[in-house]
């Protein structure tokens, strides 16, 4: 059936079964492959997007449930890739293989929107469901603190 979804400020009409996970609609129907498949059960975070500004695991979100909501993916986080999280990630060269990083960055951006100066404990709590097999966690933690400083006006 036809569903109308708003992703990164653009309206898409897609012909999918309503229970189709948003992840696969983004990837296969819209070509937005920055959002990744890792587990399909909301246990790894590679598929993290924002729905109405909140973290959502798109692999466990039915497309029909996202109708009428504001969906943001990594492609829409910043038109120039200069969101403070992206700038901090680039400064510290956080990614290794990079596959989980879209999800890490979306989760970190949502965390900072909620808590502009997160503590290490905040990071532990909010980032716990975003796995990284390469083990970039130390860089992620440092880059979240750095992004908070950038967003707060630091150079």
């Amino acid at each position, binding site marked *: 059936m036809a569903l109308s979804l708003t992703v990164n400020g653009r309206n898409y009409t897609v012909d*999918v*079964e309503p229970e*189709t*996970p948003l992840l*696969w609609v983004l*990837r*296969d129907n819209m070509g*937005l*492959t*920055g*959002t*990744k*498949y*890792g*587990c*399909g*059960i909301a*246990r*790894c975070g*590679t598929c993290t997007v924002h729905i109405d500004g909140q973290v959502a695991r798109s692999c466990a979100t039915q497309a029909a449930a996202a109708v009428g909501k504001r969906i943001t*993916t*990594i*492609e829409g986080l*910043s038109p120039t*890739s200069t969101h403070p999280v*992206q*700038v901090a*990630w*680039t*400064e*510290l*060269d*956080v*990614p*290794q*293989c*990079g*596959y989980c*990083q*879209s999800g890490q960055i979306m989760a970190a951006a949502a965390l900072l929107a909620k808590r502009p100066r997160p503590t*290490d404990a905040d*990071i*532990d*709590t909010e*980032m*716990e*469901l*975003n*796995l*990284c*097999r*390469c*083990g*970039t*966690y*130390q*860089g992620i*933690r*440092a880059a979240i*603190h750095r992004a908070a400083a950038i967003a707060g006006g630091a150079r």
Partner: protein
Amino acid sequence: MTHLDITRRSFIVTTAAAGGGLMIGVAMSGPAHAAAGMKPNPWERPSDKAGQEINAWIVVDPDGTTTIRVGQSEMGQGVFTAMPMLVAEELHVDWKMVKVEYADGNRHVRNNNLYQRMSTGGSGAVRNSRVFLQQAGASARERLREAAAQAWSVPRDQVVAKDSVLTAGNRRGTFAEFATRASQVQLAQEPAIKQSGQFQLLGTTLARLDTPLKVNGTATFGADVKLPGMVHAAVKVVPVRGGKLKSFNFDAIKGRPGVIGAYALKPVDTHPLQTRVDEGVAVVADTYYRALTALNLLPIEWDLGPDVAQTTTAYKAKMAEALKQPGAVGRNDGDTIAAMKTAAKVVEATYYTGYDGHACMEPLNCTVHIAADRVDVWGGFQNPPGALAVVADHLGRQPVDVYTHTTFLGGGFGLRARNHEVRQAAEIARQVGNRPVKMMWTREEDTRHVRGRPAGMSYLRMGLDASGMPIAFYGRYAGHSAAAQNNPTSVANGLDLGSMNGIRDHRYKIAHNLMEGHIRNTNLHTQAYRAPGYEHNLWHFEQFIDEVALAGGKDPLQLRIDLTKDLPDWQMVLNTLKQKSGYRRDLPRGEGMGVAIGESFGSIIGMVAKVTVSRRGQLTIDKFDVVVDCGNLVTPAIVAHQMQSCVVWGVTDAVYRELTIDKGAIVEGNFDTYPLMKINQMPVVETHFALTGGNKWGGIGEPGCPPAAAALGNAVFAATGKRVRDRLINQTDLRWA
């Protein structure tokens, strides 16, 4: 102290200078760069202009943009930055003008292995490519100088090449201006390459060229390949390896939306076992989710085969039984049996490590398009020419008609080295016909059908003299042999030396050594796993060395120093480790430090882990100090990142997860039952360098993994008095009173 401070401190490069003094330098990442050094599709040319190829590695555009081709595959270890640095060091190109693309696998095969090394593994990218990459850069530089010399009628040695500019007196020209002429220059003799001590670029930290693509979602992984007319395949293979597909009922799903077909996957026995297609079914549809949904609804009948009753317990018992008997001899120096009888004290222990899987964040996938005159293949290949050969073999095509397009790899770690998934994708595409097919595994398939780390068990015995020093070592190993499955002729005599890596080749000065091995394979299929052999065997051996030290009344770190007095590089690593970690054994109960060291893939890496264990047995891993001797550095930040990665790898396997077998099949499936380490479990990792320089260039992707688990195990013992000889640590009762 915040974690940010710690990370910054981890960039401090500590180099032990001759004479034992220490030079401290600070290398920081560069500023954020605006543009990536490559296309999101990394197999595509990074520039739209017609450039001049000076040699197979180097293309100079009219605007000076210089493309350097990379023969190794980017799976996070930084080859898209380190490899071009090796060329640029000699080329004297302006680094800001450097862009990169993958070397072309088809051209490599057509032109007699033109790019020399296109298989990525064995921590060999730098150490096995460095000389010919430096040579490619130096040769191009000299041709540019010679072209300018001829144009300006001056001797070549008066032409200076620097930052993509050629000068001689008041004459000046760019690399771009002389690129065409340079490509035609014949040199009487190829130039010598720079040696350690002459480098300007190598040893500095440069920003990774691939980072910009990995912070905005544009980097193309295999899973992200998009082609006109492409269809999607979901696969399910027989749950018990060794079983067969009996039948399936396509009628039950053929009316479902988007479904195109269901196809039987049957192995062909003449294909090598290492790439043979597993028995199974593929469902193809217009989107992946439709294919997967239909596959999950497809009625399938399996013949589960002869191993349907196998369990981890039974396989472990077979290994334990084998250890009672002498095995094939893998090391024999001195007279161990006789020396053991003279020992004042004998220490013995048995260690075990089970199966584990790579768990790349990107599940296995591959895209194949078969056309009349050519076949195109896209994927995260660790070995593109191998992928090309598998496809050509499977489809009966000439290798020159197969074109590989290597994507970014969402993790590799050895899993993507042998291309078994490529043959599977080729088989599906063969049945589908003339349209691109992207095949992808689910996480559950990726866990349960992984060709992962072999299980193994070690019985270790050490004889000590009256002073507590080791005099004789006797080890027996029984385990699964990956070589027996992937390269059977290499173990034809029943001896798999590689499976004993990390024990058999220990570097301690012990007068008598005897090491024997048994191959005990099961119905699982194993293959290369980050630091094969070493990764689990060092967990056995380096914990055992701690047991030996304590039994002989020695300090574990000091014993390691005393047993390697003849090895200057080991001495440097261990002494640096002692100094940097503040290793001590007088911490309050519930806190502990543990040391471990290993040499593999050309590098020596020592680690000290610090842990806290609560009375109730709750483990917190506080810190790892890591000391690296890889001889020389290409770029220190990437090495520091790889050390963090290796610690996470080793700890994850020792603490959190293991593959178990029941009813012949792997029990664990997704991250709920087969977890990875999380950010809130991450210790602080601080990397220090103790570089011995010279001609030593060690690997970096793997050798940090083996000591991590052992250092942790030793720290847990120091904190609790409990020795974990059989993983997992988090399933061990660590309570203390």
